[in-house]
Every structure is written in structure tokens, then in C-alpha cells.
């Protein structure tokens, strides 16, 4: 290698460093090394639940709105797990599936008046406050997007799963990547706005 070539090489790499600095001073899609093809997919572990709840039957085949069961999502920071009497409300009346083992388990809990110890699948760190209400109000009610898209953006296509499994990284970079997008303010305008960029909006 000649001196000249070495010099060229150095200049070239230097230019590349500068280039990356100018264009984008951060790396998208998870910490370096943990990125997948589309950026943010990060499959969580399989979580064993007390009852293997078939989301695919309820939300998929029957097309029940997510918020029919996760009813707190539109009025509270947490979406909450449906209360037991909500399950019973329907299943008392559905004779056809009463003998299935999962439903039997459900009835056992109901008889004992014991809440089902569901495990958290999407558990953010304790210093983060994520508000379901604001996101649902903004995208489901105001922007009128389909519920499976609104919920699915973070939770994945739960309608195709049995028990839910985390499919997104839920990392800060991921949150920010969406907050930073220009979202339409509502269906009828072209005005856009970003999500909040203030630390204290999400960190407590």
C-alpha cells in the first residue's frame, strides 16, 4: 500500500464518520446488536398463564373489540385485565363450550370467587408511565383507526395468538420513534402533531 492510498483510506473513513454524525446521531431500532430486520421486533418469552386464554377465538374468529374486555384502556392509564364477572357474563350463557377444560377452570375460579392470577406480559419498568387512555383516545376515537391497528402497534396481532406474547421491544427508542412521527390530528384535517417529547411525560 502506498502512502497515498493510506491517506486516501483515512480521508474516506473520516468522511464516513462525519457523514453519520451529520445525518443521524443515533441508531434506530434497539441497541446495537439487538436489532432485527424491521427495526423493533423483539419477541418476548412465552408466558404461561393460569388459563390459556384463546385471543384468536375471541378477537380473531369472533371479532370482539379489544376494548370490550380490556375496558379500562380508554379511561385509565392501565388497560387492566377483564374482571371475572365479565368473563362469566358471557360464558354462563354459552352452553356449548361449558365442558371445555379452560372454561371449567374459569368456572372453578368463579365458584371460589377468586381472581385469576394473570401474569403481566407487557411490563414496563417502574419508572415509566405509559398511558393507555391517551393513546386510545388519540388514535382510536379521534383518528378513528381500526382497533386492531391501534392496539396492535404495540401489542402485535394479538388476535392471532392464544395467550398474548410480547412482540415489540417496548424500548425507549421505539416509543420515541413513534412520538417523533407526524400524526394526523384527526380524520378531517391535514394538520399533524407529534407525541410529547418531554421526559416527564413518560418518566416518573
Amino acid at each position, binding site marked *: 500500500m502506498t*502512502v497515498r492510498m*493510506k*491517506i486516501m483510506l*483515512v*480521508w474516506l473513513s*473520516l468522511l464516513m*464518520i*462525519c457523514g453519520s*454524525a*451529520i445525518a443521524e*446521531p*443515533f441508531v434506530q431500532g434497539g441497541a446495537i446488536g439487538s436489532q432485527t430486520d424491521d427495526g423493533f421486533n423483539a419477541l418476548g418469552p412465552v408466558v404461561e398463564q393460569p388459563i390459556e386464554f384463546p385471543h384468536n377465538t375471541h378477537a380473531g374468529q369472533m371479532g370482539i373489540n379489544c376494548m370490550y374486555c380490556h375496558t379500562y384502556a380508554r379511561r385509565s392509564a392501565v388497560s387492566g385485565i377483564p374482571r371475572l364477572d365479565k368473563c362469566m357474563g358471557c360464558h354462563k350463557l354459552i352452553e356449548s363450550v361449558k365442558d371445555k377444560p379452560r372454561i371449567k377452570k374459569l368456572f372453578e375460579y368463579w365458584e371460589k370467587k377468586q381472581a385469576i392470577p394473570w401474569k403481566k406480559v407487557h411490563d414496563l419498568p417502574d419508572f415509566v408511565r405509559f398511558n393507555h387512555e391517551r393513546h386510545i383516545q388519540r388514535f382510536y376515537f379521534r383518528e378513528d383507526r381500526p382497533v386492531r391497528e391501534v392496539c396492535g402497534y404495540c401489542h402485535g396481532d394479538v388476535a392471532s395468538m392464544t395467550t398474548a406474547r410480547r412482540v415489540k421491544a417496548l424500548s425507549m427508542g421505539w416509543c*420515541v420513534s413513534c*412520538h*417523533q412521527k407526524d400524526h394526523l390530528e384527526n380524520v378531517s384535517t391535514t394538520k399533524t402533531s*407529534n407525541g410529547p*417529547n418531554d*421526559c416527564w411525560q413518560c418518566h416518573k
Partner: protein
Amino acid sequence: MMKKSHTLALFNDFEEAGQAIRDLKAVSLPGFRMEDVVIKSPIEHPELSEMLGDRPVYVQWFTLGGVLVGPLTGLILVASAQANFLLQIRGGRPVVPVPPDMVLTYEFFILSGVLMTVLGCFIGWKLPGRRSPLYNAKVSEDKIGLLIKADPLVIPKINEILARHKPIEIMGEDRR
């Protein structure tokens, strides 16, 4: 063209080595150029080097490049990082404040200057590299060495010239 061969002569002091160079310059041998003469010495001796002719040093240009690119990159990096989506207002100061950025730009200026200078130096040294074929540990102690590259045919003649100036030792490739 034949593969060139080397010879190394060790001298006791700079004057003798200087005389040898002068003699080498005076003769004209086929397959030998003054550019192929290399001095190896325990300390720097500019006068001796000058006798070998103009051998340019490029390090300054690297330094120049470094001190130009460094601050620019630094400033843009800092300012655009301050202006990213999560920009934060702090202490009533502008989001992109000038004085702090100047401080950092200054540091980047020096850092990249230093890095590029050292880089240029190593390139100029052609280091890290393999050792040249002939070396004697004495050149790092107190002897001055002349390493000459030439056609194997003219080596004896060169050795002859060198021998005139009381070298302590003349090493050739074949003798190794």
C-alpha cells in the same frame, strides 16, 4: 529488472557517514540511486539527512486536515444532538447554546488535530511495518548506519566506497 539487494555500513560518527554519502553522491553507478540510501542513526541528524536530498514530510497536511474537519464535525454533532426530537430546554438558555458548543468544538479541534498528526506520522514512518532486511542493533546505541539498496551487481562497488570511510562493519544480505 533484477531484484535489488541491500548493504548496511556502520560508522562511528556522523562525519564519517557524511563523507561516505558525499562519495556515494559523487559516483554514478547503474542500478543505484541516491533515493535508495537510508541513514539509520540513534539520534536525529538533520544535516546528514539534507545531504540525501529533499525528502518531504506530509505530517503537517494531516494536521491541517484534522484541525479543519474535527471542529466542524464536532460542532455539527453537538448542535444536531441538542436539536434532536427529545430536545430539552435547560436553565433558560437556548436549546443550542453557543458558548458551551464552542468549548466542545475547541476540544474536538485539538483532539482531531492530535489524532490526525499521529496518524500522519505513522503513515510517514510506514509503521507498523516489517523491518527492513538489514538492521543492526548498534544503530540504536551509538553507531550510524547507511542502508543502501542497489542492484546486486553494484553492491561490491558501493561497499568499496563505504569501506573508504572506516566503517566498523559492512553487512550484506548474503552474509546474513
